[in-house]
C-alpha cells in the first residue's frame, strides 16, 4: 500500500493547490477542519481526511455550519481551517462578517475557491470583494508552494492580528499541480477555552469597540504587509510595471518575463507603502487580474494614477497566457497553423446507470418539468428530458416552486415539481419545505436521494451513514424529517422502476395537497457493480421507434437506424432500456438483480 503523506516529512512533492492547502494545514498545526464539498474546493478536506489523521476533519451539512464549528474550535484555542467554493461563502457570510469583529483565538484560515470561467459554477463572483466587505485579511496564492506557505502565514497573521484570514484560491490554482517543498508537522498546543464576553458577544456596546479594533487591525496589517515576503517587487524593465496577484502572476511571467512586477500576495488590506514605491519605479502601470478590477480600483482611488487594466484585460471569464499576451504585448501573438474546426459540442450528461435518469425520463414522459437545484440532476434540463427550468442556488428549487404557485396558483403551475438532491435538501432545502407547509403551498417536492454528494465526486453526507473518514454515523431519516415538517403525503420510490415512478409522479402532482416524493437509488459511484452485463439489441425485433433514445443514456447511440449499446459504457445494474422497449427487442441478463 502507498504510504500516507503524513509519513513524508521532507522532500519535494507534485501537489495540486488543494493538496498543498491540506499539506499546509498539517504542517502548520491545524487541529480541526470542516467543510461542505464544492468544486473547486472539495479535495482540500478529502485530502486531509485521507492523508492527515492528526487533523480532526469533518463534512458539515452546509458552509455556514462548517464555519461556525471552526469558529467555536478557534474560541477554544485550536488552529482551524474551513474550505468552500465561492458561492459557499455566501452561505457562510453571516458568521464570517461577525467573526471578523470577534477575531481569532486559535488561528482561522477560511479557503474560498473561486471559479473564474465558471467551469462548475453558476456565477463568477470574486470573493476578494467579500473579504474586503467583511474586513478580513485576504491572501492569494499563485501556485501550490504558495498555497501551502500561505496556510502557515495565514494562521500566523490570524493569531497575531486577531483576524480571520481568507485564503482566496481559484480553479486554476486549486486544480493545477506544481512542485512543493514539504516539511514535518509542527504541533501547536490547543490553548483551551476561556470565556471572554467582551470579545465574543457582539451586543452593540461590545460591537462598537470591536469595530474600532477591526479598523486599526486593517491599518496594522497594511503596514506590516509592505515588509512581508508575501508581497514583492520583481524589478525589471522600468517602462512597464505590472500589478498582479494569484494565477495571473504566472501568465505575466510566462509572456513578459522582462516586465517589472508588483506581485501582491496580501490583497486585503493592500501594502500601501510598497505600492507607492512601485508606482515611483515604473513609467506605465498595468493591472492584470481575473474578473473584478479589485487591485485596480483600490490603487487608482488611492493614488489617482493613469493606468491600464480592465480596458485591456477582460472582466469576464478566466485568463490564460494568450489573453495576457494579447493585452501586454500586442503583435507578439502566436500565429496559429490550424484554426478552430467547427465540431459538435460534448456537454456533460447523466452517467450510464444514473438513478436520476429514471426520474427525469418519467417526468418528461408525463410532460412535467421542474424547478431545479444544484447537483448532477441540474442536467435534467438537457435534451432529451427538457425537464428542468430554473436554478438559483443551493436549496432554491423549493422556494422557487412555492413562489410560482403564489403568483399563478395551482393551475398556472402546471406539472412543475421541485427537484432537489438529498444532500442539497439537507444543506438548505429543509427551511424551504417548512415554509411550504407553513404558508399553505400544495406543490410536489421530489427529493432525489442517491445517498451521496455526487457532483463534487462522491462525498458522504448526513444521509449516507458515513462521515468524512468513512466511519459509521447515524443515518438521517429523511421520511421522518419530512413528516416532522408537517408533510402528510410522503412516497418513497425506486426511480428505476419506471412504471411505479411514473404512477407516483402523476398521483402526487394530481393531488391538491403538499407532497414529497423521495426517489431512492444509490449513485453508481457509491458501490461496485454486479458482474458485467450488457444490454443486447435484437435488430430483427427492433422497429426503430427510438424510444430507448429518449432515455438519454450515453451508452446508447443510434447507427444505421438501430440502437447500438456500448459494452464499455453499459452499467451492469441498469435495465431502463429493456423496460422502455415496446417490442422487447432489448434484453439483458441481470442475474436476478433489481
Amino acid at each position, binding site marked *: 500500500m502507498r504510504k500516507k503523506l503524513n509519513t513524508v516529512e521532507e522532500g519535494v512533492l*507534485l501537489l495540486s493547490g488543494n493538496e498543498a492547502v491540506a499539506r499546509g494545514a498539517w504542517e502548520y498545526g491545524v487541529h480541526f477542519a470542516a467543510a461542505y464539498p464544492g*468544486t*473547486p474546493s*472539495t*479535495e482540500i478536506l478529502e485530502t486531509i481526511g485521507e492523508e492527515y489523521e492528526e487533523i480532526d476533519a469533518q463534512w458539515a451539512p452546509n458552509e455556514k455550519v462548517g464555519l461556525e464549528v471552526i469558529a467555536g474550535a478557534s474560541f477554544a484555542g485550536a488552529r482551524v481551517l474551513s474550505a468552500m467554493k465561492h458561492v459557499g461563502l455566501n452561505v457562510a457570510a453571516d458568521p464570517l462578517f461577525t467573526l471578523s469583529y470577534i477575531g481569532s483565538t486559535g488561528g482561522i484560515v477560511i479557503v474560498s475557491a473561486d471559479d473564474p470561467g465558471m*467551469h*462548475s459554477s453558476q456565477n463568477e463572483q470574486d470573493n476578494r470583494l467579500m473579504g474586503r466587505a467583511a474586513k478580513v485579511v485576504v491572501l492569494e496564492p499563485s*501556485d501550490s508552494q504558495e498555497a501551502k506557505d500561505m496556510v502557515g502565514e495565514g494562521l500566523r497573521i490570524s493569531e497575531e492580528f486577531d483576524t480571520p484570514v481568507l485564503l482566496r484560491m481559484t*480553479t*486554476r490554482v486549486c*486544480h*493545477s*499541480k*506544481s*512542485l512543493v517543498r514539504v516539511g514535518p508537522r509542527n504541533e501547536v498546543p490547543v490553548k483551551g477555552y476561556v470565556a471572554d464576553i467582551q470579545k465574543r458577544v457582539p451586543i452593540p456596546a461590545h460591537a462598537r469597540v470591536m469595530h474600532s479594533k477591526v479598523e486599526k487591525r486593517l491599518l496594522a496589517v497594511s503596514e506590516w504587509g509592505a515588509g512581508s515576503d508575501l508581497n514583492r517587487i520583481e524589478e525589471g524593465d522600468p517602462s512597464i510595471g505590472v500589478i498582479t496577484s494569484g*494565477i495571473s502572476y*504566472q*501568465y505575466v*511571467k*510566462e*509572456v513578459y518575463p522582462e516586465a517589472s512586477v508588483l506581485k501582491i500576495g496580501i490583497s486585503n488590506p493592500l501594502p500601501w507603502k510598497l505600492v507607492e514605491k512601485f508606482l515611483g519605479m515604473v513609467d506605465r502601470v498595468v493591472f492584470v487580474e481575473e474578473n473584478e478590477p479589485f487591485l485596480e480600483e483600490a490603487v487608482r482611488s488611492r493614488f489617482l494614477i493613469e493606468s491600464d487594466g480592465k480596458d485591456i484585460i477582460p472582466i469576464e471569464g478566466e485568463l*490564460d*497566457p*494568450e489573453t495576457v*499576451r494579447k493585452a501586454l504585448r500586442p503583435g507578439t501573438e*502566436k*500565429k*496559429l*497553423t*490550424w*484554426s*478552430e*474546426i467547427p*465540431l*459538435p*459540442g*460534448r*456537454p*456533460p*450528461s*447523466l*452517467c450510464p446507470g444514473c438513478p436520476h435518469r429514471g426520474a427525469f425520463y418519467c417526468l418528461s414522459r408525463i410532460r412535467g418539468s421542474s424547478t431545479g437545484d444544484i447537483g*448532477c440532476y441540474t*442536467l435534467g434540463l*438537457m*435534451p*432529451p428530458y427538457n425537464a428542468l427550468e430554473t436554478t438559483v442556488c443551493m436549496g432554491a428549487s423549493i422556494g422557487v416552486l412555492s413562489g410560482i404557485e403564489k403568483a399563478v396558483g395551482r393551475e398556472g403551475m402546471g406539472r412543475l415539481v421541485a427537484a432537489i438532491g438529498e444532500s442539497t435538501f439537507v444543506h438548505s432545502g429543509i427551511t424551504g419545505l417548512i415554509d411550504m407547509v407553513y404558508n399553505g403551498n400544495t406543490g410536489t417536492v421530489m427529493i432525489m436521494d442517491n445517498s451521496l454528494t455526487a*457532483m*463534487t*465526486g462522491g462525498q458522504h453526507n448526513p444521509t449516507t451513514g458515513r462521515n468524512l473518514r468513512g466511519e459509521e454515523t447515524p443515518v438521517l431519516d429523511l421520511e421522518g424529517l419530512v413528516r416532522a415538517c408537517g408533510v402528510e403525503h410522503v412516497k418513497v420510490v425506486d426511480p428505476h422502476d419506471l412504471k411505479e415512478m411514473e404512477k407516483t409522479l402523476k398521483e402526487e402532482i394530481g393531488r391538491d395537497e403538499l407532497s414529497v416524493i423521495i426517489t431512492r437509488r444509490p449513485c453508481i459511484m457509491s458501490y461496485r457493480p454486479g458482474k458485467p452485463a450488457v444490454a443486447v439489441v435484437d435488430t430483427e425485433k427492433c422497429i426503430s421507434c427510438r424510444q430507448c*433514445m429518449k432515455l*438519454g443514456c*450515453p451508452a*446508447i*447511440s*443510434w447507427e444505421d437506424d438501430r440502437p447500438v449499446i456500448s459494452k*464499455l459504457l453499459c452499467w451492469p445494474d441498469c435495465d431502463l432500456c429493456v423496460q422502455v422497449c415496446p417490442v422487447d427487442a432489448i434484453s439483458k441478463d441481470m442475474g436476478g438483480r433489481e
Partner: protein
Amino acid sequence: MRPVTNVIICGTGGQGILLASEVMCAAALSAGNDVKKSEVHGMAQRGGSVSSHVRFGEKIYSPLVEEGCADLILAMEKMEGLRWAPYLSPVGKLVACDLRIFPMTVNTGLAEYPDVDALMIEHGLPVQLVPAVEIAEELGNMRVVNVVLIGAVSPHLPMEVEHWHRAIRERVPAKHHEVNLEAFRRGRELFG
C-alpha cells in the same frame, strides 16, 4: 537551458486522462524537470470533454499551454483531438486513439458526428492514429487503453524508457504493473 515541452491530453470523462497525465508528470519529474499540470474537475467531467495540460522543462510559470504552442496533443478520442488543433505548434504532433465516442448532442439528433479522418486529411493535421482499444483487448484489459497511448506518444517526448517505467510503477498498483508495462511497450513499438 532545458527547453519547455508543452503537452495537451484530451478526451472524454472516464477515459483515464488523469492517470495518463500523472504518469507523464512522474516521468518528466524523474528526468529532472520542473513540472506543472492543470485540468478540470467536477461538472465538466460527467461524460463531457476533458483536458489536461502538462508542461515541463527548466522552469515553468503558466500551468496552461498557450494556443499554437503544443509540441504534442494526445487525444483519447478522435474528435477531441480535432477540437484542440489550434493549440498545436507548427511542428507539433497529434496522436489520437482510433476511437469514436458519440456525444449526447449526436445521440439526441442535435448534431452529426463528423468524418474525423477526412477532416484530419483536409486540414493537413500531423496525426498518428493508434488502435489502442484493439491492443488493450488483446492484452485482456480494457483499462490499459490510456497506457498504450502513453507508450505511443513516448518516442515524441524527451524522457528515456526507464523514466516511463519508473513512472508507471509509481502510479499504478503493483498487481497491475506487468500488464501496464506491456501496454506501454506495445504502444511504444508502434512508432518508436
